[in-house]
């Protein structure tokens, strides 16, 4: 028998209490289970976070703490860069690079934007290519390929060195400093440097006499020889025109004559202009003389 009053539940009773039973049934309901197991904890977490961060001071403290942690990681010696090594650049160029980068070492490479460094260095005129990487031992390594100057471009403001593609390399103080390079002039000449170089190459047999090229109207070249001879080249196929001149020159010694100008602009009708002296001489020799 068991007592009818008081706590009737014996100790070893395996039966759940009414409320335990109801809770158990409730927990078996899928919606309720998801609510209790997932929705409520997430909501509580969100609420707690929201309450915590609603205070500006705490927000700031969290940001500061986060920055501190980030800094300690960034400033570990494994991530530090101490020196910059530049390879493949001349002294002046590497000085320029150091000046333009203005990195104050030591710096963590996590702080350094290598892409930006590369773009900055590649933006320098004398630099054709640059590779940036960090080397063991805290070294920022820059492998630079410099541009090779191919022509001197004379403008109103001075002389400039251009490479074979027409990209600027640097300024030139005096022509004599780079006497070995051909000279070009005229506005827009830099854009047609490859063509100019081809013309110069074609004019190799008269190299001694060539003074330079002048870009006319930003569309065609004039070839200037010594004693002010000028060869007007066409816009299209100027190299062939030069080759024709060379052939004429070699056949009939054209350029050695007293000419002021050879006009090759119309390929079908090349024309010459004599110098004044030659005209006078010609009129003297020829009986028919037209008074000016």
């Amino acid at each position: 028998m068991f007592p009818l009053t008081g706590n009737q539940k014996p100790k070893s009773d395996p039966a759940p209490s009414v409320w335990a039973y109801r809770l158990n049934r409730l927990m078996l309901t899928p919606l309720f289970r998801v609510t209790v197991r997932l929705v409520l904890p997430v909501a509580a977490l969100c609420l707690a976070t929201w309450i915590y961060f609603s205070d500006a001071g705490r927000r700031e403290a969290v940001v500061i703490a986060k920055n501190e942690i980030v800094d300690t990681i960034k400033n570990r010696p494994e991530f530090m860069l101490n020196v910059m090594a530049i390879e493949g650049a001349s002294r002046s160029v590497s000085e320029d690079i150091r000046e333009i980068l203005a990195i104050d070492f030591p710096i963590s490479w996590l702080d350094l934007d290598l892409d930006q460094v590369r773009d900055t260095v590649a933006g320098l005129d004398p630099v054709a290519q640059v590779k940036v990487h960090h080397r063991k031992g805290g070294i920022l390594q820059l492998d630079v390929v410099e541009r090779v100057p191919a022509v001197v471009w004379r403008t109103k403001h001075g002389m400039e060195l251009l490479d074979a593609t027409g990209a600027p390399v640097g300024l030139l103080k005096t022509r004599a400093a780079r006497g070995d390079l051909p000279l070009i002039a005229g506005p827009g000449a830099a854009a047609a440097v490859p063509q100019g170089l081809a013309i110069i190459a074609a004019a190799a047999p008269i190299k001694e006499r060539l003074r330079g090229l002048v870009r006319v109207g930003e569309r065609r070249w004039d070839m200037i020889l010594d004693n002010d001879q000028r060869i007007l080249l066409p816009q299209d196929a100027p190299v062939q025109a030069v080759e024709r001149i060379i052939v004429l020159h070699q056949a009939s010694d054209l350029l050695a004559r007293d000419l002021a100008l050879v006009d090759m602009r119309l390929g079908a009708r090349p024309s010459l202009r004599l110098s004044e002296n030659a005209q006078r001489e010609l009129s003297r020799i020829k009986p028919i003389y037209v008074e000016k």
Partner: protein
Amino acid sequence: MMDLYQSQRAMRQMRKAALQKGVIAILDVGSTKIACLVLRFDGIDWEGNSDGVGSLAGQSGFRVLGAATTQSRGVSFGEIDAMRETERAIRTVLQSAQKMANTPVYHVIVSMAGGNPRSYGLAGSVDIGGGQVSEEDVARVLSSCDVPDFGEAREVLHAQPVNFALDNRSGLSDPRGQVGQKLSTDMHMITVDAGAVQNLVHCVKRCDLELAGVVSSAYVSGLSSLVEDEQELGAACVDMGGGATSLSIFLKKHMIYADTVRMGGDHVTNDISLGLQIPATKAERIKTFYGGAHATSMDDRERIEIGGDTGDYDRDSRSVSRTELIGIIKPRIEEILEDVRSRLDAAGFEHLPSQQIVLTGGGSQIPGLDALASRILGQQVRLGRPLRVHGLPQATTGPGFSAAVGLCLMAANPQDEWWDFDMPSERHPVRSMARTVKWFRDNW
């Protein structure tokens, strides 16, 4: 009677709702154990299979998700005598079954063995005037059965039409659509003590469950442990439970008689406890380990330590031979079986075409029972186990679970009962007529 009709209809609705929901629990409240199975209905062919049962004897539609048993408390003779205790036991078993099924259940079908079931054969007939038999005619003939006076404080548990006859043709299972003059029916009705049912209902309600049916355990254990031809040709199922031995007689796939002998395995245990002067738990253990119904000379030599906890050497070192134990068990078993025999005789069991008797229930596991039973009940006795159903754990496939398994089958394919048919209009109470008159007066 109207109340009962309404409440049974309500339970049927509940069962339909549960089937739509797909999960239903069945609860077998016995005197020694309470078993609970949680079924899931996949809705494949649980109903609407008009031509007989579906594939796999109608079991393909459901699957057992959870099963649990617990020691029964507060139940004796299949009736509740300590509500709180029983309620706790039901809670325990439901909770563990739900846990195994991983789903909550809201509807439950309960079986009960006690309550002094009494079975009545009713007959009724109605004139249908040469037309086709409609569903309404079936309802009319069912309600035309003259209900005997089964006394106050009794409730109808089952009222199943077992036979229909149209004019001179009898043995119709479904008379609908057939043409005839006079439709008559035989109905089998079981009544039980109202108090026993109400206590059970109350216990279930206290566990936050909706009742989807109360059935007699004699009926459902017959459903699960009789095979098809036995159900067809006539057989009796004897479910030897702990507190009560229920028997049901089946003919033409219908239960035609049910009764209970209010003796069972608990009485055997009690006899052992008394005879050997040992506690009931120990007696139960000795019964299940060494029990038997037929002593052989070998059993004289087998000594069973029965011991004790008194500290007195002579008492604590007692032992009995197995023959003595069988000598205690056997008379009680014989008494039960003889009682069953007399109930069967009273029911006219010998007139059935086949007189197969199937012993099932936890008590039928006593070794040598079949020999003893065939001496008392006749030659056609076999031990029965319940059908196998989908997903039933191995531990719950024994004969002790034939009522539980039968409940599953009944939940899947319920037998038509009287309240499944709409109440014919002439049996509606007068009140509705008054309502009609009132409606006319209000609206004209």
